[in-house]
C-alpha cells in the first residue's frame, strides 16, 4: 500500500542525491590546474633580472668593451669579475673592481682536472702575491713577446700578427749604445711594483733589461741610483 510508494520515493531521493554528488565530484576532479599553471608561468617569467648581459656595458663603456672584445677574455662576461650589473645600469652605482690575485686564481690556478689547453699557472709563485693586473690588463690579458736585448738583430723582427697590447708603462726608448749619461729615472709608478727584477731581469712587458754590469745586484739597491716619480 503506502509502504511501496514511500519506498520508491525514498529510493528515488537517494538516487537523486547520489547523482548530484557524483556530478559534483567529477566536476571537481576535472582539474583547474591549467589555468593556475599558466598564471604561475607568467608570474615567474615576469621576475626581474640581476645580471645584465655584457652587451649592455657597451652602451657606456665602449672603449673598454672594444678592447675586451678583441682580447683573450672575450668569453668572460663583464659581470664575472664586476658582479651583477642590472642595478648599475639603472642607478649607476659604482661596481666592484677586484684586482686581487685571488680573483684571477679562481680560473687560472693550476688544477689537474682542468683541460690542458687552458692557461693555468701557480698564481702565488708566478705573481709573488702582487696583483695580476700589474702586468696583465684584465681587459687584454695577453703579454707581448719579451723585448730582445740590445745587439742589432741579423733579421728584421717579424711584424706583429695581432694588435699590440695596451701598454701599462710608457714604451722604453730604444737603447742608445754605449753607456747612458747616468742611471735612468724610474718612468712609472712604483705602486704594486716592489720587485724590480721581476720584470727587468727578463725584460718582460716592455721593461728594459738589466745591463750586464749590474750582475749580482738585488732589488734593495735599485732605488739607491734610480730615482722614482
Amino acid at each position, binding site marked *: 500500500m503506502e509502504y511501496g510508494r514511500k519506498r520508491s520515493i525514498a529510493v528515488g531521493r537517494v538516487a537523486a542525491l547520489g547523482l548530484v554528488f557524483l556530478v559534483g565530484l567529477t566536476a571537481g576532479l576535472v582539474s583547474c590546474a591549467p589555468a593556475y599553471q599558466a598564471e604561475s608561468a607568467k608570474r*615567474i617569467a615576469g621576475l626581474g*633580472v640581476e645580471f645584465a648581459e655584457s652587451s649592455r656595458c657597451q652602451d657606456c663603456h665602449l672603449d673598454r668593451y672594444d678592447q675586451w672584445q678583441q682580447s683573450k677574455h672575450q668569453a668572460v662576461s663583464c*659581470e664575472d669579475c664586476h658582479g651583477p650589473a642590472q642595478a648599475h645600469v639603472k642607478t649607476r652605482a659604482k661596481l666592484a673592481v677586484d684586482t686581487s690575485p685571488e680573483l684571477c686564481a*679562481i680560473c687560472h690556478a693550476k688544477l689537474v*682536472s682542468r683541460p690542458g689547453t687552458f692557461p693555468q699557472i701557480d698564481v702565488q709563485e708566478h705573481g709573488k702575491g702582487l696583483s695580476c693586473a700589474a702586468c696583465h690588463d684584465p681587459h687584454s690579458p695577453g703579454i707581448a713577446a719579451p723585448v730582445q736585448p740590445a745587439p742589432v738583430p741579423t733579421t728584421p723582427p717579424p711584424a706583429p700578427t695581432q694588435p699590440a697590447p695596451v701598454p701599462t708603462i710608457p714604451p722604453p726608448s730604444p737603447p742608445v749604445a754605449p753607456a747612458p749619461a747616468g742611471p735612468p729615472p724610474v718612468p712609472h709608478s712604483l705602486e704594486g711594483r716592489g720587485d724590480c727584477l721581476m720584470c727587468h731581469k727578463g725584460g718582460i712587458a716592455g721593461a728594459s733589461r738589466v745591463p750586464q754590469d749590474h750582475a749580482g745586484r738585488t732589488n734593495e739597491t735599485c732605488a739607491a741610483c734610480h730615482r722614482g716619480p
Partner: protein
Amino acid sequence: MNDKKVSRRHILKLGAKGIIGIAIVSSPLPFLLRYLDKESAKANELGSALYDPAEHYWGFAVDTRKCIGCGRCVLACKLENHVPMEPEYFRTWVERYVISEDGDVLMDSPNAGIDGFQPLHQDAKYRDLEIRNSLFVPKLCNQCENPPCVRVCPVSATYTTKDGVILVDEERCIGCKYCLVACPYGARYLHPETKVADKCTWCYHRISKGLQPACVDACPVGARIFGDLRDRESPVRKLLREELVQVLKPEQGTKPKVYYTELPEGVK
C-alpha cells in the same frame, strides 16, 4: 515520552540532512571556481609581455671538455635567482670526478663548487691516489620530457610549460617534498624562505625576455650552451649536429634535455 523520542531523532535527522545538503551544494563549487579563474587568467594575459611559450622549445648542452670548475656559474645562479648562500641550497652545481688508475671513480662537490676547487693533493681523499683522469661535470635541472617530479606532485604545483621548462607554482606547493624524493638527479631543494620546492628554471625570467640563463652568460669558457631546439641554427642544435652527446642516467627513462659531450663512466 513520545516528544522526547521525536525530538532526538528529529535533531539527528536534521543534522544529517544539513551535512548532506552542504556537501551537495558545495560539490559543484570547484567547477564554479574554475570558471571564475578563467576570467582572471584572461585578464592577466592581456596585460603581460608578448612572450609566446608555444613558439619555443628550449634545450641545454654542457661541454665537459671545456669546464674548468671555476664555479662562476653557481655564483651567478645564486645571485640571479636569490638562492640562499648556505651550502645546502643551490640550483646548479659542479662536480669533480677523479678516476684513479685502479678504475675507482671518486666525486666531490664542495659547497656546490661555488668557490671553485682545491688542488687534489690538498684533499685527503685524493692525496695518495694515482690519478688516471679527472674532470668537472656541471649539473642543473634537466627539464626532463618525462619528469618524475611532475608526475608525483599531489596538487599539480609543479608543471611543464609549453616551451619545455618545468616550473614550481610557489603559491600552491604544499611542501610535501615528494618531488625532492622523486628526482633522480637531486636537482630540487626546499627553499627555506618560501617553504616550497625550488629548482633551476633555466632562468625562465631571462629566457622569456630573450636573454640567456645566468649560468650560461657567466661561464668564462663556453662550457654551458643554451638555445631553442626548434631553431636549427641555435647553439644547442649546432652542438648536437657536431658532437655525439649523452644524458645523465638514461636508464631512469626521464628523457632529459641537458646534453653532455662527455661523461665519465661512473658519473652519478
